[in-house]
């Protein structure tokens, strides 16, 4: 791959206020605690289906969560607990859905791979690779059409850059100058296969930006500040009619691909190296360096743990969904009738 395509570091100058920084920390901690809880619940056999954790990737969801306007839209993947929570969706709703309970965001009908909270602009988690990229473009079209200055943000993984829908969506969004920000979380692997072994370029998203007339943007996905600055920059541009962006955030997932995966395919030492670069560790150290008191951080952490415990209790107490749900909500009339 040639050097020119390697992308440039985005955003660096502008400062981020203390309140924003605390919010970024709070959110990252909350996502971390909640994901860990999801894992515990799985070990207790309370999470029934699959689940795909964002442990290690929290900085990205958190930074966008803080940067987005409440009426902006998020589109994410099966690995979407963090992105959904980052928009303010109910934590008991998320955990309840993982556990297949009535209190789940989807009443137990969608499962962990389809978390959605329309009231918070979390417009769905999509479990078939690539599909939500065109959908996000469509939402952006609707904002553009109605002149609302809303932005659609669409998260996906490195592996997703090799599927056809990626290509179609990027070209479509670019030609129509749609207010959509595409965020590739490059965590180095598709399921169990290293992305480098199945991709013709080094940076699966950024090295393809030029194919859609877009800038090549690579950010450190484990640095919430860097992601935040980049998010603000490209979302504002999109909001003002400047068209789409494609951001590649380099990161790493600490756990396996899904609950079934012990991640034995990783080369020795790789995880350890990335644990050094744990986004929470980085961010905590930075805050301390910036003069935030240890006690402030501790409060945030404790408060977050309380929230997770509370959500867990609610979810555990929630009954399984009533069987009548099966034939509900196929249609807008609430039912499932295909005949008279």
């Amino acid at each position, binding site marked *: 791959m040639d050097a020119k395509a390697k992308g440039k570091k985005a955003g660096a100058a502008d400062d981020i206020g203390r309140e924003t920084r605390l919010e970024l920390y709070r959110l990252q901690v909350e996502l971390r605690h909640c994901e860990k809880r999801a894992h515990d619940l799985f070990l207790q056999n309370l999470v029934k289906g699959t689940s795909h954790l964002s442990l290690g990737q929290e900085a990205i969801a958190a930074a966008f969560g803080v940067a987005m306007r409440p009426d902006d*839209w998020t*589109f994410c993947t099966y690995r979407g607990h963090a992105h959904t929570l980052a928009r303010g969706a109910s934590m008991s709703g998320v955990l309840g859905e993982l556990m297949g309970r009535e209190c789940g*965001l*989807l*009443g137990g*009908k*969608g*499962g962990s791979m*389809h978390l*959605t*909270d*329309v009231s918070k602009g979390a*417009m*769905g988690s*999509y479990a*078939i690779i*690539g*599909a*939500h*990229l*065109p*959908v*996000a*473009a*469509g*939402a*952006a*079209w*609707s*904002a553009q*059409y*109605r002149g609302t200055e*809303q932005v*659609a943000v669409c998260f996906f993984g490195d592996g997703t850059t090799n599927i*056809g*829908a990626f290509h*179609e*969506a990027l*070209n*479509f969004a670019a*030609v*129509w100058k749609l207010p959509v920000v595409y965020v590739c979380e490059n965590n180095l692997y598709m399921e169990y296969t290293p992305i480098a072994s199945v991709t013709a370029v080094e940076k699966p998203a950024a090295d393809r930006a030029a194919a859609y007339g877009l800038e090549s943007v690579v950010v450190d996905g484990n640095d919430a500040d860097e992601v935040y600055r980049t998010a603000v920059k490209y979302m504002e541009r999109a909001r003002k009619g400047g068209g789409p962006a494609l951001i590649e955030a380099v990161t790493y997932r600490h756990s396996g691909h899904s609950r079934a995966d012990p991640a034995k395919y990783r080369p020795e030492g790789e995880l350890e190296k990335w644990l050094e670069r744990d986004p929470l560790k980085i961010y905590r150290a930075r805050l301390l360096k910036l003069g935030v008191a240890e006690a402030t951080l501790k409060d945030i952490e404790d408060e977050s743990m309380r929230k997770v415990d509370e959500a867990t209790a609610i979810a555990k107490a929630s009954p399984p969904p009533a069987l009548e*749900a099966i034939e*509900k*909500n*196929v*249609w*807008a009339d*609430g039912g*499932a*009738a*295909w*005949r*008279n």
Partner: protein
Amino acid sequence: MAELTYREAVAAGIAQEMERDELVVFLGEDVAAAGGVFKSTVGLLERFGPKRVRDCPISEQAIIGAAMGAAMTGLKPIAEIMFSDFLAVCWDMVANEIAKTRYMTNGQIQLPLVIRTANGAGSRFGAQHSQAVENWAMAVPGLKVVAPSTPADVKGLVAAAVRDPDPVIVFEQKSLYAVKGEVPDGEHVDVLGKAKVLREGKDCTVVALALMVPRALEAAAILEKEHGISCTVVDVRSLVPLDTQTILAEVAKTGRLVTVEENPRLCGWGAEIASIVADECFWSLDGPIVRITTPHVPLPSADQLEDATIPSVARIVREIREKMD
């Protein structure tokens, strides 16, 4: 009543709805400036402008995905897939995303969108541009499916599809585009899920769809006149929702069911109807259920071959005669 061609009636249906509701938008390939490859959307760009009537790249997944994203955020998009065969290219968007999203989100996301597509044989285009695939859509929970047979129906069902809060696929039959018929003046909106009884008979109930409807009617006239066999003819019109009341009632009256399907044999919509009748109407049946379908082959392109492959009037007459003996 004005006389319109089926293709003009499509455009009239879209125009009626775009006129009424600013949130209705229309997108597809070569649909705007060129008015569509079947000229079924001529004039819409001129009338509603390039913001609402949009030409797209050859990106069916993006087109249908964009329609979905727009629908869940407040627009009412009509997306064209040029030939129904190309639904295969964006089948994930249709069958896995659009069809399931309302259910999976427990009703949070609503998708008031329409997909229109040119379906079926008769143009000598060969196997990749001529299939009748309405059964593909019928098989997927979460999709409503209509296939109109007349200009009036296509206008009214396109309008009904636009107003419906759920995703609807409208299968327009290519060979019907040039057919003329009376279309009610003024606003015309039909109802999804209603079959039409076009002819009442005593011996046999023939259930047909789209291009097979005029053929079934013609066959019924011949059967009556030349062979003394009197047929009811039902135009199914809507596969989902399916008007089983009408179909069951009409079969009960004659005691016999014949389906006439353009789709290839296996798992065609006629099979579904046959299975419903064989369960719920079993005791009223006086003889075997007969399905007349395109044989289970990809379609050949040469004119004589294509004509001999899809059910013809002569074949319908012959098969009903043989089976009614």
